[in-house]
């Protein structure tokens, strides 16, 4: 495997990664602009494709996982990404509940309480 082939092979690898990322971006763009999906589903699809593109770029550009055994870079990324998700999802769950409780009108109050009573608390 001469150096030239090695160089050309890796260049192709980079370009393939970039093209994959570009395609994923374009797909999300089209799905959004065509307005075919309903709000919640568009969010799910868009975030899903964003995760896929994240993995594509991680592997092709940042060579994640391609390091000697303890793989500190990969482990630290997984832990940081997990904690970022916990904080984001946790914050949104808390703030959504706070906004719901703070904005409740008397009628909603009664519905809420009937639901609570059914649970038998």
């Amino acid at each position: 495997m001469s150096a030239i082939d090695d160089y050309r092979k890796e260049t192709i690898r980079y370009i393939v990664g970039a093209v994959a990322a570009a395609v994923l971006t374009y797909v999300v763009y089209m799905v959004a602009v065509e307005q075919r999906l309903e709000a919640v589903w568009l969010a799910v699809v868009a975030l899903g494709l964003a995760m896929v593109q994240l993995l594509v770029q991680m592997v092709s550009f940042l060579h994640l996982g391609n390091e000697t055994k303890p793989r500190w870079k990969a482990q630290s990324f997984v832990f940081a990404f997990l904690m970022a998700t916990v904080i984001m999802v946790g914050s949104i769950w808390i703030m959504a509940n706070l906004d719901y409780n703070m904005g409740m009108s008397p009628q909603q109050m009664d519905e809420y309480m009937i639901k609570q009573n059914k649970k038998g608390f």
Partner: protein
Amino acid sequence: MFGRLSLDYLPHEPATIGAAVAMPLALIAIAVALTYYKKWRWLWREWLTSLDAKKIGVMYIVVAIVMLLRGVADAVMLRMQTALAVGDNPGLFSVDTFQQVFTAHGTIMIFFVAMGLMFGIINVVMPLQIGARDVAFPWLNSVSFWLFVAGMILVNGALLFGGFSNGGWLGYPPLTELQYNPGPGVDYWIWALQIAGIGSLLSGINFTVTILKKRAPGMTLMKMPIFVWSVLVTMVLVMISFPMLTSALSLLALDRTLDMHFFTSNMGGNPMMYINLIWAWGHPEVYILVLPAFGIYSEVVATFARKKLFGYKTMVAALVAIMFFSFVVWQHHFFTMGAGANVNAFFGIMTMIIAIPTGVKIFNWLFTMYRGRIRFTAPFVWFMCFVVTFTIGGVTGVLMAVPALDFQIHNSMFLVAHFHNVIIGGVVFGYLAGITYWFPKVLGFRLHDRLGRWSAYAWQVGFLLAFLPLYALGLMGAVRRIDHYTDPSWQPFFIVSAVGVLTIALGIGLFVLQIGVSVWQRKKLRDTNGDPWDGRTLEWSVPSPAPHYNFAIQPTVSRIDEWWYQKKDGVARPTRNDYKDIVLPKNSGLGVAIGLLCFVFGGAVIWHLWWLAALAFVGVIVVILVRTFDENTEYTMTAEKLYQEAKEARV
């Protein structure tokens, strides 16, 4: 051109004028002494620009102890006020001064005493324990220290000019927004924390890479001393949580300086989001403070009970469990905001689960004592005070984890008593034990043991007198942060609490006296063989005071408590050709420059001197570029010199 600078920001309260005069006088006195003894060059070359982690650690501890004196002075002022101000007696201070004092007390004690002591002890001890010559990025270590000092000067500078924030140590909006608090006080608080916070973040990265990459050959993760494990877990917490502090403070700063609307009460702002963000950092922060103290307790108990630490694997498992759970509990700080039953119940249960690994650690320490030979030196007395105090704090913590109970006792004196319980009991006792335990390794002589034990007794009794009455006051309906109250039946409790705080001040006096007496009797207390306590880990294999290169020859490790077993098997004396040349970092004044520039930047933004702020920011970038393009930052120390020094140390 002059932003909002004006003379009426000078202090006009008697108390603040007194402090504002006392501090500069103290600084001038030190400057005069330094000039008189011609020590400026020594100070600059040996200490301020040194990149030796141990020297930086000692500087952290000195700054932290000075800040402890100010923090306790604040505490004495607070308790004197509450002991007197009943009914229509206004007490000693105005409301605004009182509110600034308790905000300064909280901010200084957490950010500049606890964090300062932690980073100080880690800098001194951790590289030695893993058999490394220095931290991974020595220059970054110096920058982190000087950012910490810049933050400290900003907090104390607020006393001289402009006043400090009156919004409490976490400064909830909308109270700290422009609508209710337009003055420079809150800005001092934001920028002091922001600059010190970035320093802490850089240290977190620095120590993590040191532990992961610079351990002695043969020392796998499961053969590391347990203190190093607690440092590794703490630094992961620092790296993940401090960006949240940076972002919460930055958004509040954007609200205040560029009139944005993140947390304002109008224009769509949502103050609750600030509370959510600040506590998402806040709770991991209190674990960041206590976990290294747990590591110190493990080392102290194992050494003074002359026994292997009980359940090394369980202790590591407990540390990692605490690391994960500390990120899913933060909402228990605002159960009463009204997030609803499901959210409260989830976070309450997660908070209780964290009590399990903490409890397991305490049982492991107790069973390290079991079947040991216990010597009741000062560090061990600190440990016993810790178990007594921290267990009470743990109980009240589990009580408040139940949402329905927290609805009654949140933000009352009960809560104040709880967190002082776990911070004084866990963090302060731990770091004081650590300082006493590793003092000989840094300065070559032990601390006076009897005075150390007396200081611990004073702290313990002072704590019980100061904070058990607060639990009772909490149950009577007394709310936190009040500077006066009307119910005369509360006054005896506040008086006993004031006596308690004075006893704690006595404890600190004894600690400082202990250092003084030990310096005076250092010949008698001399540590001859570098292993005064018959220790178990690598730092005791090096003569004390430890040379600036730590290990002339890097040791190889094959088991936990390597030094204990090396002593048993007899240590072969290294021959002349075992020594090799070593590369050490040169001193660098650029760390001090960055600290100064960040201080100027913070001050300029507080006083809306935009041109000066921009200049300082560009200055920081220039200094960083100068450092990266500077090629010769290291010097080599020849094997011959190492051999000579080792011979002298042995004689």
